[in-house]
C-alpha cells in the first residue's frame, strides 16, 4: 500500500465567487486533525483565527496547529519543491486554483516524475455557480469547460439561486456521462467524500462527518478468496454506477499472482497501481462508497459474485452502522 511519505492533494477550482473559499474554510474548520498545507490566491480570504498564527513572513503563514498557508505563485514547480523540502511535511495539500486558471495544469504538474512519488493527486474539485453559469460569454464558457474537463467531482453550488428547470439545464449542458456531482448551497458537501483523508481504506470505512451527511451515504464491502481475472474486473470497475463516489480495493489476480493490485476510484476517475513491494495477500477486498439509493446494490452484488462464483462474500452497510 501507499508509503506514508506520499501526501494526498486536492485541487479546488472554479470561477471567482463560485464558493472555493467557502469550501476551503469549511475544510480548515472541520478539525480533521490533519496538518494542511494550503496554497491559495490570497490567504487574507481565509477565516484564520489571529491567535492561531504562529508566524507570518508575508509568503508563508504558519499556524499553531501545524497547518501552513501560502500564496500560490506562477512558479508551481518551485513552490511544491520548497514545500517538500520543509522539515515538517504536511499531511495533506489543498490547492486553490485561481478563478481564471486551468486546474488540469496543476494536476499535470503533480504528476511530473519529480512529484508523483511524493504527492498523490486525490481529486480535482470544480465548483460551479448555478446562478452564473447560464450567462457565461464565449471566453468564460471555454474557461468553464477547461475547469470542468479536469474535474473528478463537480459541485453545483448556490442552487438556491436557480429554479429546477435551470438546474436541469445545467446538468444537461455541463455534466459528463460519468460526472460525480453534488448540488449544494454554501458548498456544503460531505468532506470525507471529496477529500482522500484515508477514511475509506478497505480496513477503515468509518466516517467522521455530520449526522446529516452520514445518512446520505452507503458503503458496500466485498471480498473474494481466490484470484480474479483482471480484464473482467477492470471492465466492471470501469463501469461503476454514477452513485458510487469513491472506491478502493486491493486485488489478487490470475495475471499477477505475485503482485497485489490496488485500485482507487475518486469521483469519475479510476486508478490502478501495482504493489511490487507488497507481499501477495490471501484475498481481494473492495470498498465502495456511494449515495444512498444512487446505485442498485443487488445488481452490483451479482456482478461481484460472478467474478469468482462460490468464493465471494460481502456486506454492505449504511454509515450509521459502521463496520466493526
Amino acid at each position, binding site marked *: 500500500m501507499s508509503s506514508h511519505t506520499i501526501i494526498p492533494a486536492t485541487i479546488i477550482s472554479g470561477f471567482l465567487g463560485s464558493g472555493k473559499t467557502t469550501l476551503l474554510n469549511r475544510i480548515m474548520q472541520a478539525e480533521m486533525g490533519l496538518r494542511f498545507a494550503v496554497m491559495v490566491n490570497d490567504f487574507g480570504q481565509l477565516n484564520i483565527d489571529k491567535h492561531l498564527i504562529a508566524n507570518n513572513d508575508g*509568503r*508563508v503563514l504558519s499556524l499553531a496547529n501545524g497547518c501552513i498557508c501560502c500564496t500560490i*505563485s*506562477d*512558479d508551481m*514547480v*518551485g513552490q511544491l*519543491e*520548497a514545500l517538500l*523540502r520543509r522539515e515538517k511535511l504536511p499531511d495533506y495539500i489543498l490547492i486553490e486554483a485561481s478563478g481564471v486558471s*486551468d486546474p*488540469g*495544469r496543476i494536476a*499535470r504538474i503533480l*504528476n*511530473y*516524475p*519529480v512529484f*508523483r512519488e511524493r504527492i498523490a493527486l486525490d481529486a480535482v474539485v470544480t465548483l460551479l455557480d448555478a446562478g452564473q453559469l447560464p450567462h457565461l460569454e*464565449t471566453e468564460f464558457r*471555454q474557461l468553464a*469547460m*477547461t475547469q*470542468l*474537463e*479536469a474535474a473528478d467531482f463537480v459541485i453545483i453550488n448556490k442552487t438556491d439561486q436557480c429554479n429546477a428547470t435551470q438546474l436541469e439545464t445545467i446538468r444537461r449542458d455541463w455534466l*459528463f*456521462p*460519468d460526472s460525480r456531482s453534488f448540488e449544494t448551497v454554501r458548498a456544503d458537501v460531505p468532506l470525507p467524500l471529496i477529500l482522500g483523508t484515508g477514511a475509506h481504506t478497505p480496513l477503515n470505512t468509518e466516517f467522521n462527518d455530520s449526522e446529516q451527511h452520514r445518512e446520505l451515504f452507503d458503503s458496500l464491502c466485498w471480498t473474494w478468496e481466490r484470484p480474479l481475472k*483482471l480484464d473482467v474486473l477492470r471492465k466492471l470497475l470501469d463501469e461503476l454506477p454514477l452513485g458510487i463516489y469513491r472506491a478502493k480495493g486491493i486485488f489478487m489476480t490470475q495475471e*499477477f499472482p505475485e503482485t497485489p*493490485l490496488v485500485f482507487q476510484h475518486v469521483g469519475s476517475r479510476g*486508478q*490502478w*497501481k*501495482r504493489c511490487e513491494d507488497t507481499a501477495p495477500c490471501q484475498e481481494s477486498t473492495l470498498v465502495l462508497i456511494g449515495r444512498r439509493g444512487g446505485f442498485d446494490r443487488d445488481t452490483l452484488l451479482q456482478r461481484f459474485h460472478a467474478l469468482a462464483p462460490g468464493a465471494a462474500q460481502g456486506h454492505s452497510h449504511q454509515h450509521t452502522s459502521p463496520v466493526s
Partner: protein
Amino acid sequence: MQNFESSHCRRPAQGCADIVFKSGRIYTAEAASPWVESVAIRNGKFLAIGSDESTSGLIDEHSIVIDLQGQFAMPGLYDMHTHPDLALAPGYAGYLDVGIPDPTPDQVRNAIVDYATRNPPSAQNPEGWVYGHYWVRFNFRKAGIKPDRHWLDSVIADRPAAILDRSWGCVLANTKALALANIGVNTPDPSHGYIERDSISGEPTGILVDGAYAMIHAAMPPTPQHALRRAYRDMLMFQASRGVVGSKYVHVCEHRLEALRSLDVAGELTQRVEASISWQDDIFPVKRRWQLLAGERFYYASDRLNANSVKFHFDGTHESRSTYLSTPWEGETEWRGHLNMTPEHLRAMLLEMDSKGVRVIAHCTGDGASDIFLDAVHYVRNKTGMPGVRHQVAHSTTLLDENLPRFAELNVTAEFSPVGWIPTDFAAQRLVLGADRAQRLYNFKGVLDAGGNAVMGTDWPVTHPNPWIGFEGMLTRKVPWATDDERFPGDEICLDDAIAVMTINGARSMEIEDIAGSIAVGKSADIIVLDRNLFEIDHHGKIYDTQVELTLLEGEVIWDSQSRFAGTPRAAVWSEAPAFGYC
C-alpha cells in the same frame, strides 16, 4: 557585380558620394565628435562626415542628396538576443488547425481526415505526419470518449498523428507516432512532463504531457523551410522598420541557417546576423551540430551572416527556481538552482570553442552561473591569452558586484534580456530572486561604470521585438505607457550610454566595432533617421514609440517610410512591415 577591395586593388578613395544627408542633427556615438550636420556615403561606407560645407564638394549628378531639415539621425540599433523562428515559424508551418471554437470529437476526426487527404506524404514529410491543434477534452468527456491512441488510431492509423489539446498542456499521439518517437513501455519520462501510461501494463496511452511532447517534435520532420524563411523574413522587415541593423538570432540549427542563407542569397538579409548554433537539443534537435562546428558553418557565411557562435543554457529560469544563484534561494538552506553543465565540462568546451574563433553565449540568469562562466573564461585567458573571442553572458538578470569589472578584464559582453527592467507584471516575477538582489537586477550601469560592454536583447517572444521599449526603459526603469510613477528597482543610465548600449556596444559584441556601430569615416554606412530628436524630448513615454523614417545598412536603403528614395535606383528593400502586436 563583384568589386572587392584588397591590398593592391583599392576603390578610389576620392570621388563623389552616392548619398549625402545634409542639414541634420546627426549623433555619431563617437566621443571625439558626437554631433555632425552631414554625412556622405559612397560604396556602402561613410566617405565624409562634418558640416554641410564639408560634404558639399562630394556631390555630383549621380548623388542623391537628402535634406534632413534638422531631423535627428543616429547609428542603427542592435538586438543582441532574439528568436524570430521560435516566435513565428510554428504558426507559418501549415500544420493542422481544426478551426472550430469548441470542436466535438467528430469534428476533430473530420478535420484530421480532411487534412490528411489534402496533405499526402511528401519529400519534406515522407512519413506523412499529421500535426496540429486542437481537441477539447470537455467534449470528449461529454461524448463519453476516452481521448487515447486507440481513438486516434480509429481516425488515422497508417500515418503518424499528434494533436495538441486546447489548453496546450498535452498532445494526443497515435500508435504510429509513438512508435516513430520510440515511446514505449520502457521509455523514461522527461523531468518536466510525462508519458501517460496504463498504470498496470505501463503501455503509453497516447497522451504526452508538457516536456514529453518534445519527444514527438524530435521524431517529426524539422519545421518546414518555408515557415522558417517566412519567420526570419518577417522579422527582418519588422526590424528594418524599427532601425535595427544587427541581430543575434540565438539558437539555430542547419535548417535555420539554410533559411537565413536563402534570404541572404535573395538579397533580403537586411542586417548583419550572428546566428548562434544550439549547443544542446533542448529546444529542437541540431542533427549537424558537430559538422557545423567543425567547419560546415562557413558554407552559410557572408558579410551579413555568420554562425561563429554557440548558445547554451547554463542555468535555468526563475519560474522553475533553477536560476543558479551565488547563495541559496530565499527561504532555502541549500538550494541554489540548477546548472546544466559542470564547471569542468564548461571549461573544456570554452577552451575548444575559443580556439576555433567561436563565440560562446551562455544563458546565465543567476549570479552564481555567471560567476562560474567568468571563471571559465579566466581559465581560457590564462591558457591562451587576451583578447580571445569576446564571449557573452546572456540575460544577466542578476550579477555579483564583484564580477562587474571582470567583463572588461576578461573581454566578455554582458547582455541584458528580455526587457525585464521595467515594472510590468512579467518583470516583477524576477523579484523572487530576493530583496537584496532587487537593486542589482539588470545592472546596465554597474557593467558600464566598470568599463564593460553592456548590450540588450528583446529575447522575443519572451518580450516584444520592438527594441525601443527596452531602450526607453534603460533611461527610466518605468513602463513607457504607464501613467503612474512606479519604477523598477536598479539604476537608470543616461541617454549617451543607452545609445551606446543600443549601437556601438552591439557591434562590439559581434566584434565588428572596427567597421560598424557608429558614424565615422570609413565605417559601414549604417544610419537611421527618426521622427524625433531623442535629446530634445522627455524620456518617459516619449522614446518607445519613436518612428524610424529611414534605415540604411552599408549605404543600402532598407526602410524608407517617407518614400524619400522612391523612384531612385536606391529605393528601399522593404516597403511594409508586420506589426507583431501593440507596437
